[in-house]
């Protein structure tokens, strides 16, 4: 499966749909969704820098490595805002921050592939943690929300489950095929471009549904 450079850029730039909606609707977006909105904007900037680096130096790996760390920490902040780390669960937040930063440093600086390849191990670990945290949020929402389809947190978490499940698979097969041809590895990567596009559309819908006026509901 071969995709032209421009098609991959177009698929990656679909993040701009939610980025633009977030700019237009920023005043109506509640405080708890702000970390997600900031992350969307960082994602938009990252895409531009990645394209520039790829165009200028034919390598944007460094950009991707730094972005994944920022992304993982912003998602932890987002889950904190969704009250997932309240009370007794607060220690989990510190644990995950230390875990992410630790693995990222180990994977980035203490392997042979520094700045030449993706941080496979870090990507698998943080994707796994984000999927678990998303499922926890979805479970909580089942008992408090009445209309899940219109709930931004639900849509974001569904998007995260889809994207990061595929990221785990892709990185696993990427690792398994490290000694395979460049064509094979880029074909495995292509799958994630389409998933990324689908998830960006889900995120755009989530940003569209973010309302400052929040209805209060009873738990079942």
């Amino acid at each position, binding site marked *: 499966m071969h995709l032209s450079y421009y098609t991959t850029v177009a698929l990656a730039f679909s993040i701009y749909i939610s980025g633009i909606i977030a700019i237009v609707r920023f005043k109506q977006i509640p405080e708890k969704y702000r970390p997600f909105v900031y992350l969307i904007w960082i994602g938009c900037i990252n895409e531009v820098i990645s394209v520039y680096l790829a165009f200028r130096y034919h390598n944007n790996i460094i950009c991707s490595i730094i972005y994944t760390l920022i992304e993982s920490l912003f998602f932890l902040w987002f889950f904190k805002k969704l009250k997932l780390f309240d009370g007794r669960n607060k220690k989990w937040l510190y644990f995950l921050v230390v875990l992410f930063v630790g693995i990222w440093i180990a994977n980035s600086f203490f392997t042979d592939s520094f700045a030449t390849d993706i941080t496979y191990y870090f990507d698998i670990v943080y994707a796994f943690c984000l999927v678990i945290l998303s499922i926890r949020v979805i479970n909580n929402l089942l008992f408090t929300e009445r209309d*899940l389809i219109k709930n931004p947190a639900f849509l974001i978490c569904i998007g995260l489950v889809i994207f990061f499940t595929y990221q785990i698979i892709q990185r696993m097969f990427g690792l398994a095929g490290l000694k395979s041809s460049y064509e*094979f590895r880029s074909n495995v990567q292509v799958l994630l471009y389409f998933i990324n596009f689908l998830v960006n559309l889900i995120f755009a819908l989530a940003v569209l549904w973010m309302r400052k006026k929040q209805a209060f509901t*009873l738990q079942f």
Partner: protein
Amino acid sequence: MDAKETSFYIAILIVCAVIGVFIAYFIISIISQQRRVVKLYRENLLTEITTLEKERSRIAADLHDELGPILSAVKLRINSLDISEEDQDEIDKTNTQIDNLIKRMREISFDLMPVSLTRKGFAVALKKFIDYVGESSNLKINFKYTDIKITQAQSINLYRIVQEIIHNTVKHAQATQLDIELKAEKNMIILSTNDNGKGFDYDVTSKQASGLGLQNLLRRTEMLNGKMYFDSKKEKGTIYSFEIPIAYDENKANQNNFS
């Protein structure tokens, strides 16, 4: 890619497709399951609140229509007795006690289910309740409303919602002013209240015993298929807003008749 890599790649595609189907099934099933639970929850709530209101209505009617006349008859009979001047003082005291008893009984009956609510509707009953609160507290209440055709179930639940808000404002908010507005907008009943009290933190209050009043508001709103919004800041008062679908249906109106 060579033949080995191609077959490996096809295996990856199949794994991804299978996982995609699992995720899609997972999403669809949790949404449909949650909708079923919400429906069941609302039905249970409807049964619970309807039973409660029916029982309140019955007790209120018994107090108002049976005990009231009996007490009045007792008072009449006592006054018709031929008594000496010495006993007149005792009779006067008894008369005062019976009057107090009748007054208190009417108050309890009104609190349980105002006759005006079932006979004259929400606005009239609420005005009466506001007058009553005005006499017994320092709270000044402004009530603005437009005439909307609503079912009896809606009018009783809306009345209970406002009653709870007024009760909370008097008891906890230390407010001197409460504005209540009822209007119709885009097929929705909009009920909004705004006080100048001390405000509160929803997360803190909802976990305390005083959060029962809030839960009551939410249950009533849920039962009416509506939404409750509120905004409260320390020393800046509390604003409640309720959006209830009008959807007036004569059949439903008769079905949910509590009286």
